[in-house]
């Protein structure tokens, strides 16, 4: 029962909020869609913390995509044994995880101690930090504990198939129920974070400016045919 609640209902609800929330926010609040950078206030700590955190978390995200979406049978089919995969994943993952965490620690320390940055922190930001850091800590903790005890759990046989099953619309909570509690907590925290995502500054992830690589340097745009910044009243539209 709790299995269904936490690993079927919660994921679907959170994913729905994630998708619809982004659509809604994009339509309603383009102006609020920003990184809200605080570099202007302080740059010494940011210069170390921010790249450390961001590059770290990009690696972590890449690792998750690999681990969750690619079935174990596929990697075995191309001759990568589970032990080899695990060794690589754990070492890279731990390094990336620690970079992320170290970066986050610097950033949070900065947020708390640098006056202007602290006064620019909203309640929304604080909730976001708790969720994000909580999720990262749970994930990193589970990985490290599992490996320290010497019996790392092969999540690619439990968590990953469950995760994929959500997207086939044949959710199977029993799969993840077989994983240790750490994994289950991490997954739950992640889904709650996803539900909060569209309402936080994390939306800036979806504006990674890759188009910059191909667009011409100078953008020309015609003046909005609508003059001023509100639409014409009926009967006052522009004469064509």
């Amino acid at each position, binding site marked *: 029962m709790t299995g269904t609640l936490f690993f079927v209902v919660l994921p679907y609800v959170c994913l729905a909020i994630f998708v619809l929330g982004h659509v809604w926010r994009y339509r309603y609040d383009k102006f*609020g*869609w920003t990184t*809200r*950078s605080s570099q202007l206030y302080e*740059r010494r700590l940011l210069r170390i913390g921010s790249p450390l955190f961001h590059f770290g978390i990009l690696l972590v995200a890449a690792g998750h995509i690999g681990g969750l979406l690619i079935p174990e049978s596929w990697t075995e089919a191309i001759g990568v044994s589970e032990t080899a995969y695990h060794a690589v994943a754990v070492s890279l993952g731990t390094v990336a995880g620690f970079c992320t965490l170290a970066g986050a620690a610097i950033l949070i320390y900065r947020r708390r101690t640098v006056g202007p940055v602290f006064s620019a922190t909203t309640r929304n930001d604080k909730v976001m930090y708790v969720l994000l850091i909580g999720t990262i800590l749970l994930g990193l903790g589970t990985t490290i504990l599992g490996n320290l005890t010497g019996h790392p759990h092969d999540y690619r046989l439990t968590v990953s198939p469950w995760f994929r099953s959500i997207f086939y619309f044949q959710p199977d909570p029993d799969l993840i129920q077989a994983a240790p509690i750490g994994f289950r907590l991490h997954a739950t925290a992640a889904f709650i974070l996803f539900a909060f995502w569209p309402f936080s500054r994390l939306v800036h992830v979806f504006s990674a400016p890759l188009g*910059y690589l191909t667009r011409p340097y100078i953008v020309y745009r015609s*003046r909005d045919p609508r003059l001023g910044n509100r639409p014409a009243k009926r009967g006052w539209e522009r004469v064509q």
Partner: protein
Amino acid sequence: MRVMAQMAMVMNLDKCIGCHTCSVTCKQAWTNRSGVEYVWFNNVETRPGQGYPRRYEDQEQWKGGWTLNRRGRLALKGGGRLKKLFSIFSNPKLPAIADYYEPWTYDYETLTNAPLQEHTPVARPKSLLTGENTKITWSANWDDNLGGSPDHGDKDVLLKSIADKVKFEFEQTFMFYLPRICEHCLNPSCAASCPSGAIYKRAEDGIVLVDQDRCRGWRMCVSGCPYKKVYFNHRTGKAEKCTFCFPRIEVGIPTVCSETCVGRLRYIGLMLYDADRVLEAASVPADQDLYEAQRKVFLDPADPAVVAAAEKAGIPRDWIEAAQRSPVYALINKFKVALPLHPEYRTMPMVWYIPPLSPVVDIVRDTGYDAEDRGNLFAAIEALRIPIDYLAQLFTAGDAGPVDATLRRLAAMRSYMRDINLGRDPDEAIPAAVGMTGEQIYDMYRLLALAKYDERYVIPPAHAEQAHSLEELATECSLDYEGGPGMGGSGPFGESSGGSVPIAVENFHMLVERQTSDTIVDPGDKELRVNLLNWDGKGKPEGLFPPRKDES
């Protein structure tokens, strides 16, 4: 030939009295909000001086603008696209708030609620960023009128390249004011640096704007602009810049800074230019050739071939006529007395300056000679190498030739017109000495000294059959806008969220809310602040005075 039109400005530095009226009115119109307290779209700096932000001209440090790469092609000085994307998490070249100044207010409350005491209570300065007590150490015009220059005047970037240092002793120095706005460049490096493509140049009038809905706060434009005229709003997390008062320009009235300029020294008009030749002109190898190269990009609006091409390019007839009457074109290309600011940044700036003759005139007068006499003035221009070299560093990448020629033309105008004003016979040798005719000199004099409002500002309105609903003409209820009356205030994600609100409505709510604030720095998700600048003296804004005992 691809004809495009550009709104451009010329400022006559001789007439600037450094009153900062332009800065203040601009601030009231555009940056009188939290998040941009430190921002001056228009600022007036005393030269020699460091400018605002401090030492912004040092491109070896800030890497703004364009440069030529090893193959002689134009490239962003701050690095190419990949480099920009990799440094996106921490922009290495972003000026910190300390390079501008820490905005502050005063704790006026203690003046009214301090207990009876021996000493008069003082309103201590409070930082607008932290709300804590602060020590004011710098501002946007801290070195106004060379204040403090004996201590830090030598930090002026331009003095580095002038061998004989300008002396900052009171009697020996020269000084003038340099009002600066965004240059609305033909080749804007701010736009080129923007990863999101949010900064664009309007095809109709060349005004460079930031699309607030597309800006994602990557801050690359701030570093990219060599004039440091894009600013980061630290509350909304978006870049903001001078808009050339486009809502006013669209209805044919000048920018706020021009309208309110006490010296009446600003000219606004259209320039037609050949968009196909901009890149070529911006890539000429020698920095000193950039002034001439840019001048050649401009098209003569009287030339029938240009008129035909402009019509083919869809430029309306009344715009072409406005370009023909443009005072800016006359000053730049006919009389050749206006020069671009720092052409060596290769952005092709479009706010040009008539260099000041007054430092020269003052020196001649102070030495007791006749400061209207051509011979004396020419000799002084010859002798005053340091001021001339300094102006050349500003306007022609160090080439004293054009500055010299410009000052001579202005000096010639002075002495030629004196004869006329005194009822003497005009001496035609004077204009001839600077390669002009008496008539040209007189026309130039008219434009520089007498021109009325509609000659200084030749602004064709945008094709604005809808001008009725433009904000500046408040003939409709200002609350009638989509989603209105949306009572301003905060969207669900803090001040920056929600759709955009008409500027007038936004200002109104800002006022109301500020007056009801009782903290100096507001919690990030509310907009509250007391701002005395906004209090017109009528009524009693809540939060300005402590509550009465019987009320609370």
